[in-house]
Every structure is written in structure tokens, then in C-alpha cells.
């Protein structure tokens, strides 16, 4: 079998293939649910109810979606230019480190000055963390997939070292955790008494800004050109290496904002379990959104809903909440396959 490009993608195909991907994901997870000894209908109902069945559930889903929008944008931007940033997890943690370094009392300013300052510093830290692998790629030809993956482990150990050393909270009863950020460094809650915070608004604004950069600016055009065909872009006079460097700065900065927003908006301090793999899940979010910055918002809310819903479901039904990770991974694979089949026709001999 081989693939033949379709002259044009029909309207039916753009709906049927992704629908097929979702169906395949549902069927596969139903089988797993049945193996676990539960009824798929009940389980999916509980997941949906846990994700969006009440005001509490809905707000919790949006709260969980916030870091995923940032990491999803980071991945979408990088992948568009074919910079394979698998290190959003590391950049997230470095953004969180910078938030704690500046936000726990080292700098005293009113909120209006302190929060933008911390945001900028966090973005710069994440940006520089990805600039390293980007330069190794363009200057030395070192594959950025491997370097960014390995950096995830290095940075997590670095954070662990900081939390047992200079950043350790002396009143933390020996737990490796940082001090809490001061009131001026905290992002306000959107609704009094609820967990959803201003980071969600920042995430939406970021998605719009990234969309404008990608669609309306020269940089966005150059990034797409480099991603489409680096050789042709170079031939057309686009400074490919500089575009890759700029992409890295943007992507790393966005991922760092996830760490900033989790610390300053939700958790208040830095611990080693700040992110349950938001950096990696960002890859799924970006692919489900077909690398479209505005689509990232919807994809992040969808993925967050599965996680939040599965957590709630596993408390009442006897199915491990790991089913959420399985569903998310399966939907990634089926969706990339569906997108390919949307654009190409399968020929058998």
C-alpha cells in the first residue's frame, strides 16, 4: 500500500476521519474499561460528569487546562518550524524556579510591577533553556530531540537540588518545597473562593498573540517556511538559523509561563510534583490542535477534561485513573493518522 495526495480534501473527509479517530479511541478505551470489570457507558458518563457536570467540575477543568494551553502553544510554535522541542517540561520547571526566586520576597514591588517582572524573567529563563539545544542543532548538528529530552532529567534534578538547598523552605518540616510567593506576586483568582485564576486569562491572551505572530507577521511566515522546507527557505534568503533561534526563544518562553502560572496562580510554591508531565501532554495538545494556536485552547480544555473527569470517575468506579493517560495517548496516535488520511488517499497496489 502507498499514499497518494488528494487533489482537494472533501468536506466529508475532514469530518469523517477525525470522527473515526475519536471513535477508535472510545472503542479501545471501552475494551480496557471492560477488562477492568466496569461498564464503558457508566465510566464515560462519570468522566463527562466529572469534567463538565457541575460548576465545580467545569472550573476545575479550565484550571487544569491552563498549563496545558501554555505547553501546547510552546510545542505548536516549535513543531511548526520543525524544531522538535520535547523539553517543555524542563522549561516549565525553570519558569517556576524563576517565579520562586523573584516572588518570595527578594524583590518587593506592587503587583502591577512585580508580576510583569516575574513573567518576563520566567520567560527569559525558559527561552534560554531552549536556545541551548537550538544552537547545538544549528551549529553542531546535534539532534534537539535527544538534548531536550535529556535536559528534562537534568533540570528536574537541578530543581530537586535547589529545593533541598538554597530554595528550601526552612519552615517546611523537611519537605523539599520552596517558600510561598508573597501576596504581591500572586495572580488573582477569577472567582472568589474558586481555584480558577488569572493565569487562564493570560493563557488565552497568549494563544491569540501567538496566532497573530504565526499568521500576520514576517517571523510567522519565516517559521512556517523553515518548517515546510528548510533548504528551500535558505535558498529564498530566509536566515534559517536565526529563525530557529527565535522560534526556540518563543517556545521556551511560552513553556516557562506554564510554570509561572502554576506557582503564582495555583500552588503558591514550588515542589517536585508541580507538573505531572504537562510538558509531554503539551505535545498531544498541540497535535490534536493541528498546531493551530487557537485550536490549542480547545484541545487543552478537552485533554484537561479527560484528566479531571477520570480522576473523579476513579473515585467512584473501580477503574484506575491511568485510563486518562491511555485515552490521551491513543487519541494522539489516531488523530495524527486521521489527519494524514484526510490529506492522502490509500492505494492498494
Amino acid at each position, binding site marked *: *500500500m*502507498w*499514499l497518494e495526495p488528494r487533489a482537494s480534501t472533501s468536506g466529508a473527509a475532514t469530518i469523517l476521519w477525525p470522527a473515526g479517530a475519536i471513535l477508535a479511541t472510545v472503542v479501545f478505551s471501552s475494551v*480496557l474499561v471492560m*477488562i*477492568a470489570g466496569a461498564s464503558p457507558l457508566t465510566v464515560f458518563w462519570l468522566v463527562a460528569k466529572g469534567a463538565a457536570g457541575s460548576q465545580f467540575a467545569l472550573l476545575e477543568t479550565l484550571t487544569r487546562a491552563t498549563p496545558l494551553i501554555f505547553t501546547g502553544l510552546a510545542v505548536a510554535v516549535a*513543531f511548526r518550524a520543525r524544531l*522538535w522541542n*520535547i523539553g517543555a517540561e524542563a522549561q516549565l520547571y525553570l519558569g517556576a524556579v524563576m517565579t520562586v526566586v523573584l516572588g518570595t520576597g527578594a524583590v518587593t514591588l506592587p503587583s502591577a510591577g512585580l508580576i510583569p517582572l516575574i513573567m518576563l524573567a520566567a520567560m527569559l529563563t525558559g527561552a534560554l533553556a531552549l536556545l541551548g539545544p537550538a544552537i*547545538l542543532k544549528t551549529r*553542531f*548538528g*546535534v*539532534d534537539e*530531540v*535527544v*538534548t531536550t*529530552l*535529556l*535536559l528534562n*532529567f*537534568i533540570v528536574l*534534578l*537541578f530543581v*530537586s*537540588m535547589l529545593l*533541598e*538547598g538554597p530554595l528550601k523552605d526552612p519552615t517546611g518540616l523537611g519537605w523539599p518545597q520552596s517558600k510561598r510567593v508573597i501576596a504581591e506576586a500572586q495572580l488573582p483568582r477569577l472567582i472568589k473562593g474558586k481555584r480558577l485564576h488569572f493565569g487562564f486569562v493570560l493563557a488565552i491572551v497568549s494563544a491569540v498573540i501567538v496566532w497573530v505572530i504565526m499568521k500576520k507577521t514576517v517571523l510567522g511566515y519565516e517559521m512556517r517556511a523553515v518548517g515546510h522546507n528548510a533548504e528551500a527557505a535558505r535558498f529564498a534568503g530566509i536566515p534559517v538559523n536565526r529563525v530557529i533561534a527565535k522560534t526556540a526563544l518563543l517556545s521556551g518562553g511560552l513553556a516557562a509561563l506554564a510554570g509561572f502560572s502554576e506557582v503564582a496562580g495555583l500552588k503558591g510554591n514550588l515542589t517536585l510534583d508541580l507538573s505531572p508531565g504537562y510538558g*509531554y501532554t503539551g*505535545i*498531544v495538545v498541540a*497535535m490534536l490542535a493541528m498546531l493551530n494556536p487557537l485550536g490549542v485552547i480547545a484541545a487543552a480544555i478537552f485533554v484537561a477534561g479527560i484528566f479531571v473527569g477520570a480522576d473523579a470517575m476513579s473515585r467512584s468506579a*473501580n477503574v*484506575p485513573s*491511568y*485510563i486518562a*493517560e*491511555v485515552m*490521551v*495517548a*491513543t487519541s*494522539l*496516535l489516531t488523530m*495524527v*493518522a486521521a489527519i*494524514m*488520511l484526510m490529506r492522502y488517499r490509500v492505494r492498494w497496489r
Partner: protein
Amino acid sequence: MTEAFEILFTASFWVAAIRIASPLIFATMGELICERAGVLNLGIEGIMVAGAFSGWFTVYMGGDLWTGVLVAAMTGALFGLLHGFLTVPLGLSQHVTGIGITLLASSLTYFTYRILLPEVTSPPKIEPFQPFAVPVLSDIPVLGPALFNQTPLTYLAYLTVAAVAFMLYRTPVGVAVRAVGENPSAVEAQGISVTAVRIGAVMAGSALMAIGGAFLTMSAFNSFFFEMINGRGWIAIALVVFGSWRPGKALIGAILFAAFDAYQVRLQQITGGVIPYQIFLMMPFVLSIVALVVVARRATYPKALMIPYQKGER
């Protein structure tokens, strides 16, 4: 200072180095086969998790150790088939698919673990492979015990390197595998299916990765923990580059790497907490990046690596 130097001459150090190298050797050979056929397999980390669990669980359920190894290999091959199907005939991005396979294989493993062992707080233990001293050879000072007083799975790792090298350079199958990674249209012109060779290579490679994972639960340790692969798959990918896609060089890379890893653990004990332990744990990952930078300039990638092959295209 002399103390730090003397470590290098103790047998226990080299025994540990070879033990640490064994899973990396399996994983590196597995990745090498995939990449030689033109397919990057980032599913490696998750496939090792799946192999570690499936092999261990087979033995826990009463299977014998070699059955466990076989089950692990088959589990790996199954995920390899999925990766191969998605990346070869469908031509999906090998990066994205590989990460997807890693996410799928590890989450499926954790899900299965929770279903099969719902109530356990500490993971149950099995009776793992025991060291077997090869007569005469294991009596050589220092190197004897290191190389020839290991578990049968380590000996299988040596054999794997020899078998992979022989297969790649001395058999028609190996010629086909190398050719689909360099010049697939020439292979197709010979009437050999590029798709079949590539999928076969990815399945075989993934089986080896899974055995590498199983080494940890069935030979190095005796039970299954979450996060136990801990980046070994990614390190194997770096080792393939470091070894210039050649089995012999990759073997040397794996042993050097493992020796360094074993050394840092001992150095950590000598320095006695002056330097934060995280610095030592970071070293293997830092070393991998440094090694990549050093060799990158003269690296000769398989020419068709990461390029999907479409019939009729050139």
C-alpha cells in the same frame, strides 16, 4: 584522591559497570536496528517500561524466567508493529508517533499494573536470574568476574551485539535493512518491499528494547517500580549516535557510559555529601549531551533516516 583512583581497579566496580551496561546494550542495539532501517523509534522509553512489566509479571504468575524474556520481547514487537505501521506505510511523523508510543506503552503498563495488582502497596518480588560464573574465564583477575560472573541475560546481551553485527554485515537480511535506511528506491527496484523490511526491523528492534527493560526487573532487580526506566531509553538513543550506528562502537559507548555511571555512585560515597547527590545523578545525562556534541560533526546518519518512503517517488 588515590582512593578515587583505586576504584578503577576493583572487581566490584567493573561487575557493576557491566551490569549497568546490560540493559543499555539491549536498548541501544534495538534502536540501532530501527535507525539503520531508516526509522527513528522514540517509543523506546515506553517499550522498555512495557517490557520490564510484562517479563516480570509473567514470572510473578509462575512462568519461568526465559518465558518472561520471551513475553517481554513479544510485547515489545507488538508496540514495534504499531510504530512501524504508523510511520512506514502511513508515513506519519516519526517524532510525534514515537512520543505517542512511549506515552501509550507506559500508560497502558501502569493501567494494567493497577488492574492486575490493585491492592499492593509495595511491589511483590520474584526470584530473578542469578549470576553464573563461566568456568576458567571468571578466574581472570578483575575482568574475569566483571565479564564472566554475570547473569545469563548479560551473556545474552553480548550475544545480541555479535548477532546484530553479523546480521547487519554478513547476511542478505542485513544488507536489505541497511539499504532501506540508505537508499530505499534501490531496494524496491530489487523487488524487495521497503515496507516489509522496515516494519520487520522496527519489530525486531523493539523486541530488544523490551528485553532491555526486562533486564531491570528480572536480573538487576526483582520487582517492578514505576519510573524505573528513568530515561535509559533516551540515553540509548544518544548512544546510537555516539556509536555512529555501528554495533561494536555502540557497545563500547554503552560500557564506557555504564562505567562512568558506576564510578559516580562510588565517588558519591567517597566525597560523603560535600557535593549534592543530584550533581552525581545529573552526570550521566550531561555526559550523553557532551558525547553527542563531540561526535555530531563527524556523524554519518543513515541517509534515509526519518524520511518516509513512498513508492514511485525518488
